[in-house]
């Protein structure tokens, strides 16, 4: 109820009368007494504001510099004009939000802060804090000032090293080595020459431009020249900036790559002198994923070493960098973070696959589920497709006869368009005599910005076939089918990398992740909703009953109160659900009784099924007999100045360690990474789940020897939590350990 405002305010149209207005008052006969009375009211109102910690004069002047400019008293300004202009009195009170959410106050013409201090606070009305707003600094089109110096170091006193560029080599020179017409440098030793030529032949093979002649592989003499690669990162899509350590010996680095846009012509794509560790060599790639060959030479041009760099995209900023992080996190070797060393190991494995010298390939077919595709994702870019075909010897399956499949293998990986396959999964070979089983699915989700952490999601093998895409919506999880080995089950290497859209989810997408047409959903199974009314406040309970009755198919649903609801809620439930209401003393009695519905839903305190298809979607998950419980992410909505702020409140708990010992809630940020998907959780959100009728009896029976449950949570639909969860939930779903999503954060 609206409280009658006391007379603490000046009249709406008569505050602080000026001389002319005063004269008009006198003329109208209102007189001096009226003026003095109003002034007294205003003084008192100003005193109330000044005593309140919600009015911050300094903040007010800082936020609204026009007031400082005219030199007006901020309290007086807020009382007279500020609130009518929607200005806030301080950082902890939003004028607009208070008036928007209290229309009775808005209608009354009362100053909102005074109303809150004198009435609103005691009536439990929220005061709606002002959220900090970052104001843009310089707009991008305006000139920037000079950068401040942030680093200084003494310049090297080493003498300038003069070196020869390849363009200065002459074919007349003695001992000069050339490959495909490119002059590489001098090499007088016959054995070394053969090694260099063999390495280029190997590069040709790895790049897919020679069918059978593998070449001689990596030719670096590691005892003499340990891997000098220090660091490499993509400065743009096609340029890797590299640093090298030649132990103080000035060395010229030259990079070579076959250019697939020119029929595989060998190109020199980078050249530079490294006299110290801080020297850089930029390599302008013909194709950002094709293998490189690095030739190291003395400044005079004598070739001293060669290094194969099979997968440059493992470098920081490259498409496969998250894979490097994942591999490094599961490998104890010293060079586990080295893109060159890891790349060479993967290349060796790939070579076995493509030459058929080992077992069949683990993956023979790569398919992209094109639902939701933009067409501009990396996997559809010509350079990526060329890399798949030429280097990885696999094509994206599109149903055409021309699509290249790897012979002998049976494994199939299906990705969404925003994913790319990892080098590991395409380089892997399958040990013979493997049993065909579902395999564990590991997905790395990352932004292209390598400074941001990547997240590794591991789906247990039991879930891989359970989690189907939702309607026509793009899949969130990759799938791995027909793999003939269970060897991959214990491997934490991702099969795909999802390159994340940096866009934050909007409130609308959190409230309704997918607009599923009711037409695509199956006929609903009826549900008995268990509600403990004693845990609820009256108003939220009535709202929740309203929302339940608005659910599609709710005309068959039953409400079972455990304990007695208040009279108004009882009346409302009767109106909404007719005779389909039950009251039980305790849940055990309910569980023992025969219920008329096949499904039981638990609705915790303050939960509102805001999306009308929520129960339908949860019930459809239970069509799969392997699934024990179905639940969805809970979100919370908070009123801010102009709109509502929606956040993920509970998306279930997951495993944090491989042994399943550490369970913790899925964070909102993690949940957003797998938005619009189904995933197994260790325990469902505590305030909302759906189970089969017989499951409840087993959960309540301590002697029950039920196997490990499979709890599936979905972010394809959400429900709202309007009260904080106090954990007083009964019955409690028994947690799963191994049958849960595992989440690992990878830091670069």
């Amino acid at each position, binding site marked *: 109820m609206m409280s009658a405002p006391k007379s603490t305010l000046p009249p709406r149209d008569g505050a602080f009368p000026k001389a002319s207005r005063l004269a008009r008052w006198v003329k109208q006969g209102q007189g001096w007494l009226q003026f003095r009375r109003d002034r007294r009211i205003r003084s008192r109102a100003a005193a109330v504001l000044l005593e309140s910690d919600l009015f911050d004069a300094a903040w007010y002047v800082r936020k609204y510099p026009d007031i400082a400019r005219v030199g007006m008293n901020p309290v007086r300004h807020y009382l007279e004009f500020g609130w009518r202009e929607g200005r806030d009195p301080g950082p902890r009170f939003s004028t607009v939000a208070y008036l928007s959410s209290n229309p009775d106050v808005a209608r009354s013409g009362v100053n909102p802060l005074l109303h809150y201090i004198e009435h609103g606070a005691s009536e439990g009305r929220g005061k709606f804090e002002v959220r900090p707003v970052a104001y843009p600094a310089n707009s991008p089109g305006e000139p920037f000032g000079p950068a401040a110096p942030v680093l200084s170091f003494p310049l090297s006193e080493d003498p300038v090293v003069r070196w020869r560029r390849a363009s200065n080599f002459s074919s007349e020179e003695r001992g000069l080595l050339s490959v495909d017409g490119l002059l590489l440098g001098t090499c007088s030793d016959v054995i070394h020459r053969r090694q260099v030529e063999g390495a280029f032949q190997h590069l040709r093979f790895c790049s897919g431009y020679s069918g059978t002649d593998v070449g001689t592989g990596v030719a670096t003499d590691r005892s003499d020249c340990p891997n000098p690669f220090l660091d490499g990162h993509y400065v743009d899509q096609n340029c890797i900036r590299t640093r090298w350590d030649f132990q103080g010996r000035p060395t010229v680095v030259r990079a070579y790559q076959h250019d697939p846009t020119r029929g595989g012509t060998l190109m020199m794509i980078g050249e530079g002198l490294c006299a110290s560790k801080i020297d850089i060599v930029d390599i302008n790639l013909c194709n950002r994923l094709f293998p490189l060959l690095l030739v190291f030479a003395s400044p005079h041009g004598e070739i001293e070493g060669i290094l194969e760099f099979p997968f440059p995209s493992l470098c920081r900023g490259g498409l496969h960098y998250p894979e490097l992080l994942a591999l490094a996190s599961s490998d104890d070797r010293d060079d586990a973070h080295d893109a060159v060393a890891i790349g060479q190991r993967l290349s060796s494995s790939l070579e076995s696959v493509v030459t058929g010298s080992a077992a069949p390939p683990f993956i023979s077919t790569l398919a992209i589920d094109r639902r939701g595709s933009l067409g501009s994702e990396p996997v559809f*870019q010509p350079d990526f497709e060329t890399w798949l075909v030429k280097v990885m010897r696999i094509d994206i399956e599109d149903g055409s006869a021309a699509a290249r499949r790897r012979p002998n293998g049976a494994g199939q990986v299906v990705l969404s368009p925003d994913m790319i396959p990892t080098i590991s999964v395409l380089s892997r070979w399958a040990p013979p005599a493997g049993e065909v089983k579902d395999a564990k699915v590991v997905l790395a989700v990352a932004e292209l910005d390598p400074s941001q952490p990547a997240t590794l999601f591991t789906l247990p093998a039991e879930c891989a076939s359970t989690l189907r895409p939702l309607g026509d919506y793009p899949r969130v999880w990759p799938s791995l089918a027909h793999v003939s080995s269970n060897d991959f089950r214990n491997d934490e290497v991702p099969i795909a990398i999802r390159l994340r859209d940096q866009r934050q989810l909007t409130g*609308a997408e959190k409230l309704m992740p997918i607009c599923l047409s009711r037409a695509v959903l199956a006929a609903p199974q009826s549900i008995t909703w268990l509600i403990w009314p004693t845990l609820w406040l009256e108003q939220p309970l009535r709202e929740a009953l*309203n929302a339940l009755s608005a659910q599609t198919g709710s005309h068959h649903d039953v409400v079972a109160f455990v304990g007695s609801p208040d009279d108004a809620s009882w009346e409302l439930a009767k109106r909404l659900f007719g005779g389909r209401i039950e009251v039980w003393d305790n849940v055990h009695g309910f569980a023992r009784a025969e219920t008329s519905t096949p499904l039981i839903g638990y609705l915790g305190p303050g939960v509102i099924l805001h999306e009308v298809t929520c129960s339908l979607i949860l019930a459809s998950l239970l069509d799969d007999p392997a699934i024990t419980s179905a639940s969805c992410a809970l979100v919370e909505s908070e009123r801010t100045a102009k709109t509502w702020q929606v956040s993920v409140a509970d998306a279930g708990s997951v495993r944090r360690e491989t042994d399943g010992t550490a369970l913790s809630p899925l964070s909102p940020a993690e949940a957003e990474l797998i938005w619009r998907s189904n995933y197994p959780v260790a325990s469902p959100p505590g305030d909302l789940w759906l189970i089969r009728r017989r499951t409840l009896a087993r959960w309540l029976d301590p002697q029950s020897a039920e196997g490990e449950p499979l709890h599936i949570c979905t972010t394809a639909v959400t429900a709202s939590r309007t009260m904080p969860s106090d954990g007083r939930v009964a019955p409690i779903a028994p947690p799963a350990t191994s049958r849960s999503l595992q989440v690992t954060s990878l830091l670069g």
Partner: protein
Amino acid sequence: MKVCVLIPTLEYRGYAGARIRYGRLQKELARRDVHLELVDVESFDPRQMDADVLLISKCHDARSVVAAAALSQSGHLVGVDLFDDYFSQSFDSRLLRFRNWLNQLLPHCHFALCSSHRMAELVGKYHPDLAVHVLNDPAERAEHAFLGQKLAEKLACLTDERRLRIGWFGVGDNPYFKVGLHDVAAYGSALSQLLRGDLDVELTILTNKRSLDASGLALITQLPVEANVEEWTEERERDLLSEVFACFLPVNSQGFSAAKSLNRAVTALSSGCQVISAGYPLYARLDHLIYRDIPSFVDDIAKESMRHSQSRLGEFHAAMLEVASAVVEAQSLVEFLRTLTVSNRDEALPIVLIHGPVANPASHRMVQSLGGLSVASPYCASQLKFDVIFRGDLCRPSLLVGEGAIRRVKEKMLTRLQGPVEDAGEKFWRLSDGAGEADPILSADGASLPIQIAVYPKAMEWIADHLERAFGPCRIIFAENLHWPIAVGSSRAC
């Protein structure tokens, strides 16, 4: 024939949508006695409309629906021009309001103009019986003058200086889709192939300032060629197109992009630029004049024989005649409009506009000026002089009739009026229609967002039902333009 094009704002006249689509047609249409007049929706009064046809363009709020409903009832031809696809993303809850809008508008329309065949197909899914005409964006005829000379000069300059200037122009961002700079970045790696030769490559990006935030600039820094970034203006675009040798126009394949017209490629070609297209083959009809791969482009530079050149102007003019001729487009539009007749399908019914949480005062005024009813739903907190308001607590909503609307109440219901009661200083009479007891429950004002969303569709159906019971048959329009995923009518199925 006079056609009134209803546009969202006065400023919109300067946007590409209005400038290219209507500005370039105006003269040719006038020659055929069809006169286009652009009127912003804010100053539009359906009662004063002296045009024969109303064409709604980008006015995505209830005013256009109200105007369409009123004018279709009064014997005018009503149509909608659709050239941006915000309507096919059926799973995206952010765009539900656009789908709601189109669902409400199309029943009042006699025809739709579409920028592409994809848009035409989309309209068919919403309203299979609606007459649809594909209107291509015409090219500016003046741009064709001296084109051959310009093409030759640009090639000569490139050959002499070995400096290849490439341009990209357009809106760099979109609140809903990854387009603009995202496309440039996604397909930009192809430009690295230009660096292999002896050409100095320069890319100039002309785009809107809003798109040049940190992430937009980060996308640009990822490009393999050096890029100059400038703010787009119409003049600067014209200058850029006269300077650069080629335009790089990548397009992704999502519905929003694939449904676009050919106007960017047409503008570039008409300004004497080569076009390098990447991604979705939006410009396939111009394939013989443009490049889909960089190596061919580089080879043609080496041969000094470009696809768009002085010697092949005949092909260019033929293509323009087919896809971007103001004469052809104007003629076909006139012929299309003349095939349309105003059907008598719409019985003249009072228009009732029901306001959701946020009422637009302009649409409120418009419906009242047309003799319709402006109704505040229980969610509506706006303080306007509504004809009918729904108020009350969660369980017992009341239908309150304003003083001015009492005469509109059905005669047999007049005896059920009680009052007056006061709401926001206005007098209302409570109407008890005797049917509310067992009806679904409405949410009161100030209710939380989740409960509003949960019961909104049911509540609106309830309100519409009660209004028809009180006032008789009427044409109900929901003035819902919220960003929240609130379904109106049958739009969920679209």
